[in-house]
Each structure stands twice: as structure tokens, then as C-alpha cells.
């Protein structure tokens, strides 16, 4: 067991996957000699060579498109898009091809690719480096959308994503890359995709989050505990396919719910979760569902960004509002 940060956990998972399967390739901008702008692919070129770790020309759409061709040929490409602010050009390749190749060909051709990208804000980055586009990907049939919240989950979920026979969008919370540290056992054990993780049990209110917001939800739960409120914290981890069962079971227990995400409120994935709860757990609810999200604005530049992102205090306040219903 080693204590690592989240980006090191990603690196461990990539190396492990490449070690155990020759078909796994890493490609993207600056992933080779530079080891990735966040060092997620550091050392892989030296270890696995230039035929397994490919520095591509600067063209996000073609990185995804190449991966479709490689995937159809039996490789397992793991493509890095440098920031989610630059990920929009690949939506066409994912929606029009990667996510539907299996369906279009009745299973004759498939696309076992992973697109990794740092996502979210909070690192005082320049414009276009703080986006949270997970809901756009979750809307695309045939994709899986995964967001880890800790080094351990990054390791286990990324291994699972690479081994998955279908395309996976794997979004890594940038602000946790170095801030989140934890023990990881590099034993090749993958987590299961499509399952939520209950990180903390509580009987009064369920806090639902993913990525960096999980850290804020856990902090909110600690604050609420001091007030005698038992908060259950669910790390969604896989947005698509969504583990509705775990969420509904928790609401059955607590009757109150706060959903937190960095992405803008409207059309955010919190709406989907709220919808599932309304469909399957309405009569368990003791209070309206609270959604704490980014605003429906462009993410402000760093001088104002802290006002934009949901944090533990906004999540705790929402939980307190929910608790006011008796």
C-alpha cells in the first residue's frame, strides 16, 4: 500500500493496464515525453515505448476519431484530452461513432476506448480550463461516464473503464489531482462501473455528489454531525449507467436529499437524479429535493470563481433547509 495523490493513482492504473494488456495504448497531446500536462502519463513512454504511448498532433477531434479506428481494430486506446474546455470537438466522434458503432453494426465492430480528461474548476486556471461537461456525455446513449473522487477510486474505476468493452468518458477532478491523497494498493483490482459508493452512513439527509464535490459533501456531513444531523454521503462515481437503486434506498432511509455538482444547474445531471428520486422514491421524501450547483453562467475567471463553485457550507445550508421540514 502506498499513499499517492489522485494523478499518481491515474498513472498507476494506466501503467497496470498497459502492463497486463498489450492492446492498451495511451495517446493524446503531450502525453509522451512530457508525461501529460498534469503528469498523469509520466514515465509511460520510457517504460512502454513510442508504439504504446503516442504523442499526437494537436487535434482533439482526430484523437477521438483515431481511437474509434483503433478500437474497432481491437486496441484499447486511452485518449487524453488536455482539459475539458477543449473536449467539445470530440462530442461528434463520441456521439456519432464511438458510442454507436456496436449498435450500428449489430455487435460486429465495437469501440473499447476511454477518453480521460481533467475536469472542473477551483485551481485558478485560465479561461476554458474549468468546465464540467459530464451531463453532455451522460446524455449520449452507448457511453459510460465516470468521475472518481479519490485516489483509490481513480485507480479502481480507471482500470474498470479500460477493461470495459464499450467507450467510457473518464473525467478526473483537476482540483483533487494533488489535493486528494490516500492509500492505493496497486494490485490490479478494479472497481465495478455503474455502482454508487456510500462513503458515510447517516439517517437524516442524503448528500449526493461526484468528483470534487464529494470532498465538499463529506465536509458538510462533518459540520452537520456537530449539529446532531446524520448525513449519508453518496459518491455517484458512475453517472451513466446510474445506480438508481443505491440512491433510492438511501432516500428511503433519510427522506431528505441534497444533490451537489459544479456544472450549471439547468440540464445538469442533478436534474436526472432528482427525476429518478421523484419517480421511485417520492413518498419517502419529507422535504423538497435540494440541488446545489454551479450557476447558469459562464464560469467566472479566477478572481470570482470561488463564488461560483458549490462548497461545503452551501451543501450544509441546503441540508439544514431540508431538515426544517419535519
Amino acid at each position, binding site marked *: 500500500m502506498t499513499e499517492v495523490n489522485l494523478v499518481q493513482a491515474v498513472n498507476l492504473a494506466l501503467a497496470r493496464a498497459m502492463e497486463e494488456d498489450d492492446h492498451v495504448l495511451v495517446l493524446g497531446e503531450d502525453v509522451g515525453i512530457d508525461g501529460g500536462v498534469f503528469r498523469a502519463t509520466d514515465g509511460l513512454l520510457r517504460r512502454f515505448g513510442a508504439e504504446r504511448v503516442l504523442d499526437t498532433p494537436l487535434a482533439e477531434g482526430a484523437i477521438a476519431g483515431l481511437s474509434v479506428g483503433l478500437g474497432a481494430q481491437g486496441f484499447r486506446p486511452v485518449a487524453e484530452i488536455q482539459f475539458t474546455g477543449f473536449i467539445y470537438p470530440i462530442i461528434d466522434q463520441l456521439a456519432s461513432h464511438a458510442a454507436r458503432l456496436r449498435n450500428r*453494426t449489430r455487435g460486429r465492430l465495437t469501440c473499447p476506448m476511454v477518453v480521460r480528461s481533467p475536469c472542473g474548476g477551483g485551481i485558478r486556471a485560465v479561461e476554458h480550463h474549468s468546465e464540467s461537461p459530464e451531463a453532455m456525455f451522460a446524455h449520449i446513449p452507448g457511453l459510460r461516464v465516470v468521475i472518481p473522487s479519490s485516489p483509490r477510486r481513480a485507480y479502481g474505476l480507471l482500470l474498470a473503464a479500460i477493461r470495459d468493452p464499450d467507450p467510457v468518458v473518464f473525467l478526473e477532478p483537476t482540483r483533487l489531482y494533488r489535493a486528494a491523497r490516500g492509500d492505493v494498493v496497486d494490485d490490479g483490482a478494479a472497481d465495478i462501473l455503474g455502482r454508487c459508493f456510500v462513503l458515510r452512513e447517516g439517517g437524516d439527509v442524503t448528500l449526493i455528489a461526484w468528483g470534487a464535490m464529494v470532498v465538499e459533501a463529506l465536509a458538510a456531513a462533518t459540520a452537520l454531525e456537530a449539529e446532531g444531523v446524520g448525513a449519508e454521503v453518496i459518491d455517484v462515481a458512475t453517472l451513466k449507467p446510474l445506480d438508481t437503486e443505491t440512491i433510492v434506498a438511501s432516500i428511503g432511509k433519510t427522506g431528505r436529499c441534497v444533490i451537489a455538482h459544479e456544472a450549471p444547474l439547468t440540464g445538469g445531471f442533478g436534474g436526472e437524479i432528482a427525476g429518478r428520486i421523484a419517480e421511485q422514491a417520492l413518498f419517502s421524501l419529507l422535504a423538497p429535493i435540494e440541488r446545489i450547483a454551479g450557476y447558469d453562467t459562464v464560469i467566472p475567471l479566477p478572481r470570482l470563481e470561488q463564488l461560483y463553485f458549490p462548497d461545503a457550507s452551501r451543501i450544509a445550508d441546503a441540508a439544514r433547509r431540508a431538515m426544517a421540514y419535519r
Partner: protein
Amino acid sequence: MSDVVARFEVEFSRCLDRDGNAVGPLPAFAANPENLIALYRGLTRTRVFDAKAIALQRTGRLGTYASSIGQEAVSVGTASAMRSEDVFVPSFREHGGQLLRGVTPLELFLYWGGDERGSLFAGPKEDFPISVPVASHAPHAAGVALAFKLRHEPRVAVCIFGDGATSKGDVAEALNMAGVWRLPVVFVVSNNQWAISLPRAQQTAAETLAQKAIAYGFRGEQVDGNDVIAVRAVVGAAIERARQGGGPTLIEALTYRLGDHTTADDASRYREDAAVTPYWQEEPLLRLRRYLSETGQWSKTDEERLQREMTAEIAAAADAYLKTPPQPPEAIFAYTYAALPAELARQRDGLLAVSRVAAPEAS
């Protein structure tokens, strides 16, 4: 002071003139009459398929269909230069190449009739299904070629797209990657002069589409796309160059779209019928037939026999298509993922419950 730092040339190749006369020595494969007759059969089969598809569409028995009339030689000539282990990555008007590669007329009818099983090719199992979003398949061909290169396999990816596609970023990005990595891929532009209503002159200010390759560091050339012998020769040379490690080629095949863009289009809204008329003298079947007839390799009887044979084959395929029952409702869900997630199983069960109510006899 200033110096010229780059110059370029673009070659144009042709074997037969529009009247079907050889303009010079023909490529070696043309010495064997069987090879030329195989090409002529491929062209004829495509055209007979095309006519049947349009007839089915006009009578409400096929979906919207993109005819390839007039530009069959680009597709057939290209596919004829490929080996079976190469991979074809076509756009949506390449029925000729698909048929020659072993996609069956039944599969094509199923696809255009709205059935995904039309892309479950029994023949060329690694070939891509057609790409409907223009140009978006060019990077796939580069990816397939990269796979060949990484596995050190002597195989080539062959991608066809239209003149309109050359304006899109996907083509630019794919050409660039192919050039940087010297990938074993051949890109063929089937330049039929029209992107729906937009004529070639309004598509780009570039003098040729072939020269776009030169900016990406590899060979670009033109070929008479209505001359199937020339297409096969030029594409074949490019494929063999790629197979030997010589990198990619972009070939602009000059042809003409004699029909509407698709059965949903009415070309008379944007081009005069009179402008099309001369191109009927350029078209590829007529040209090869003239050559074969002039050189005593083809007779009226041969033609009649071939037409009968193709008409019967295509009619039988159309009949089999019309008799193919649709997939069961659960087929909508079955291939979204390798294994059906719980949420999709729930949605599938919802559909099955509804469809049982709607069609009680089906359950």
C-alpha cells in the same frame, strides 16, 4: 530578398478517353480480359442495384437512398485495387465498392430500408459501415491504418469521401495525422462536383482537391474518376506504396453526380438538366463498354446476358429484403452496450409491455 521555398505539381491520369479509346499503353492488369470484364460486371451490378433501390424507394418500400449513378467507377475501381484483408472506410455513396468487397445486395437493401442488420456484413467483417456525417469517418481510417502499422501488418485502410468533405476539419485532421505518422492509408475523394446544391467551385478556392495532401506532406494526385481502369491503376499504386511503408496518398477522382443528391433531393432546384446532359457521354459504364466492344472483348449478347444475370440477382435480393421480418422490439436495446445496464433493461421492459398491448399476436 526572397526565395521560392516550395513548389508543387499535381498529376492527372487517364487510360481511356471519353470515347473509350486508350490514350496510351494500358496498365498490366488490363492485358487480361477477365480483369476488365470483372470491373465491368462490378459497375453494372452497382447500377442495376441503384436502379432497383430507387424504384423501391419511389414505391415506398425503401427509405431515403443516395444514388451513385455516374460515379460507380470511383468506388468499384478503388475496391478492385484492395486486398480482402485491407479495410474499407466508405462514405454513404459507395455501394459499388461495398458490393465488390462482398457486402451483399440484401445487406445494402436492409440498411437503406432501415434495418441495422444491413451493417452486420457477413463478408468484409472489418470494413466500416458507411458514414453518414460527412468527413467524420476519415479519422477512423487513420486509426485503422495506425493499428496496422503498430501491429506491423502489411494491410492498408482505404477511405472514400466526397468533395464537400474536404472542407471539413475531420479530413484535415486525418490527413495531417496520416502524414505525420506515414500511415498505410489511401484517401480517395470522389469529386462528383456537387455537395447537394453547392458546386465544387464554391467549395474551395483551391485549384485541385488533390493538392491538399501536399500541405500535409504527402502525394496528392488526380485521376479520371469515370475511367475505371485509371482509377484501379492509380489507387492500386497508392495502396501498394502504402503497403510497402511509403505512407499515405490522397487521390482526387473526377466524376459527376448524374442523379439527385438523394431520393429526398430535387436537383432541378439548383442545376439545369441541360448542364447534366453532356456528362452522360462521360459516364463510366459507357466508356468501358465502348473500349471492350471496340477491342472485341464484349458483344451485344454478352451485354444482354449480363443485364439479365444482374437484374435477376438484384431482384432476388430485393425480394429477400422485402420478405425479411423486422427485428424484434428488444433489438433496439440489445447492442447499446455489451451487457444491458439495469436502467436500459427497465426501459426495454417498458417497451415490451407497450408493444405487447399494441400487437398481442406477436407475444
